[in-house]
């Protein structure tokens, strides 16, 4: 026996289910949906389906989810909408405050402790991340907050008023209007600047698993500081699959962001198929516009299980589209390292910079390189 439900209730329940599935449905979209269904007639299932697609979806990813939720909600065999169990949110562990930050203590003892701790922090900055134990990792996590990224800039086609540069003809004419057409002082303008996009591709396969946490923290820190400066940083993980983790890294707390990213990525410590995942990235995002004119940073050791030639082709493609391609290899900083693996050899001719990326100090160098790109 199905209880008597108003049509509006059922439709609004559907919008809530859609929101739970991950489509961003706001109040005004829901109202628009109701108005659209009223316009086409709520009895026509097909028309309701199209009305919902037009008002509730905003991108092709939403369309796929919409189809699934619609089929489940308006199943013709069962009139009751199904309740979805709410997932319990996992509590994020708060990270310990680092105990060595200079506290301006009084007394020689405290000063000695502070000085010793400060130099220990310096040493920690230069140590390889893969060789740290758990306590040192926690301390290092606190020190990531010191990294700050000034987003790289590029010139735009918009002009801004300036006191030098090129002549601003419309403003000059407008000023001369005040003087009845007599030429008055000249107005100047220059081209504006806006931040360039930064794209980070993190290799999370088995060989890079020791660096995964540090790289995610770095990506999170770069995202936050770039947002403060007005720029955008997009992050993807590559391994056997390509996963878009930008949204997960948006939360301000580093630990929560790492946990969220961990939930989204399915292929931690798996194999490495750099060439294929890079091709997927370029086809779906890069070619359309995300990598165009952007600074793209690839964090990987280059151990390619797949076809190294494919990797070379895709890197060539990336270099043609992006403004600057930076390859960060955690093994580069080690003594006696030479790029001999097939993957690195294939990719290196197409990179503008080849940097080391194993410690906090090298990460700081990386942010400098990105800012100056």
């Amino acid at each position, binding site marked *: 026996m199905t209880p008597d439900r108003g049509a509006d209730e059922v439709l609004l329940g559907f919008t809530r289910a859609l929101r739970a599935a991950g489509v*961003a449905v*706001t109040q*005004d*979209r829901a109202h*628009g949906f109701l*108005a*659209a269904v009223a*316009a*086409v007639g709520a009895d026509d299932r*097909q*028309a309701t389906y*199209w*009305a919902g*697609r*037009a*008002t509730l*979806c*905003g*991108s*092709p990813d939403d*369309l796929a989810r919409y189809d699934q939720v619609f089929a489940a909600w308006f199943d013709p065999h069962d009139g009751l909408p199904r309740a979805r169990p709410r997932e319990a949110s996992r509590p994020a562990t708060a990270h310990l405050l680092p105990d060595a930050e200079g506290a301006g203590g009084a007394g020689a003892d405290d000063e000695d402790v502070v000085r010793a701790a400060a130099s220990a922090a310096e040493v920690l900055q230069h140590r390889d991340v893969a060789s740290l134990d758990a306590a040192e990792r926690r301390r290092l996590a606190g020190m990531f907050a010191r990294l700050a990224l000034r987003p790289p800039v590029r010139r*735009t*086609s*918009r002009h801004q008023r300036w006191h030098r540069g090129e002549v601003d003809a*419309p403003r000059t*004419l*407008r000023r*001369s*209007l005040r003087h*009845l*057409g007599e030429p008055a002082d000249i107005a100047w303008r220059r081209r504006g600047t*806006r931040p360039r996009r930064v794209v980070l591709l993190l290799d999370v396969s088995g060989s890079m698993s020791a660096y995964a946490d540090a790289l995610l923290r770095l990506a999170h820190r770069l995202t936050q500081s770039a947002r403060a400066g007005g720029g955008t940083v997009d992050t993807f993980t590559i391994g056997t699959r390509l996963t878009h983790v930008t949204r997960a890294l948006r939360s301000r707390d580093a630990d929560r962001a790492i946990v969220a990213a961990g939930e989204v990525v399915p292929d931690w410590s798996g194999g490495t198929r750099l060439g294929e995942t890079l091709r997927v990235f370029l*086809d779906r995002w890069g*070619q*359309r*516009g995300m990598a*165009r004119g952007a600074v793209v940073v690839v964090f990987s050791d280059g151990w390619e299980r797949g076809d190294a030639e494919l990797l070379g082709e895709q890197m060539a493609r990336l270099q043609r589209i992006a403004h600057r391609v930076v390859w960060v290899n955690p093994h580069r900083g080690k003594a006696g390292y030479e790029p001999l693996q097939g993957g690195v050899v294939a990719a290196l001719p197409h990179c503008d910079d080849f940097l080391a990326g194993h410690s906090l100090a090298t990460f700081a160098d990386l942010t400098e390189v990105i800012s100056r790109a």
Partner: protein
Amino acid sequence: MVQGMDSAADVAARLGTTGYLADEELATVVFLASRMQRPLLLEGEPGTGKTALAEALAQSIDVPLVRLQCYEGIDASQALYDWDFPRQILHLRALEAAGQVDSDEAEKSLYDERFLLARPVLAALRQAPAVLLVDEVDRADDEFEAFLLEVLSTWQVTIPEFGTVTAPEPPLVVLTSNRTRELHDALKRRCLYHWIDHPGLEREVEIVRSRAPEVSEALARQVVGLVQELRTRDDLLKPPGVAETLDWARALTYLGSAELDLASAAATLGALMKYREDADRVKAALDRMLAR
């Protein structure tokens, strides 16, 4: 509401008379856009007929089409209105030469209709009812989107010294985007969203027959079959769209081929493939495909 669109079927019929074949979903969305007075945001691969829809729509309901092509750096003065300063200055000089020195009168005559350059959005407001096509809105930037949002919500433009211009009937707005950039949520929420996909085999043959009647039925079928198969390949940099299919079919007809053969196909491949790597791959696969 633009008169004459009573239902989705009516919209589809009207579009059909102009040669644009719309499926039921697109017709429903267009009908909703006109009934709810909301803009229509069309996203899709290049070459799937987004701009063509706006043109067909304007033609089908017999209203003028006003076109605003967006580019990076476009601002409100390019989209809305501008004053023709050089003409205004000449007008002042003329008054001065004629000896009329009444400054108030001179100033009032400066801000007259004839010195106002009405750019597309203002033109659409004044020519209401009309169809306003904002093409490639993803090429513009965030500030322009905010301006567009404001205009689309209020449909009222206040020009200082001139007055307020309102439209008796808001125009039907079609925004197109190639998804090179994610549009702002605020703009997307205001619009009705529709993703245009590549058509299926039968539908594409109908489109070719309808848009390019000089192409023979057999050739159309062969061309469309080949293009459909090319779209399923995942190693092409730019899969061909409907526009490319039409170009290729027409090119082959102009060369006089009644059927698809290797020589003419290889010669006209430039109409279909726009990347050298794609052209090489397709040439290699052509003889295998044509042998079937």
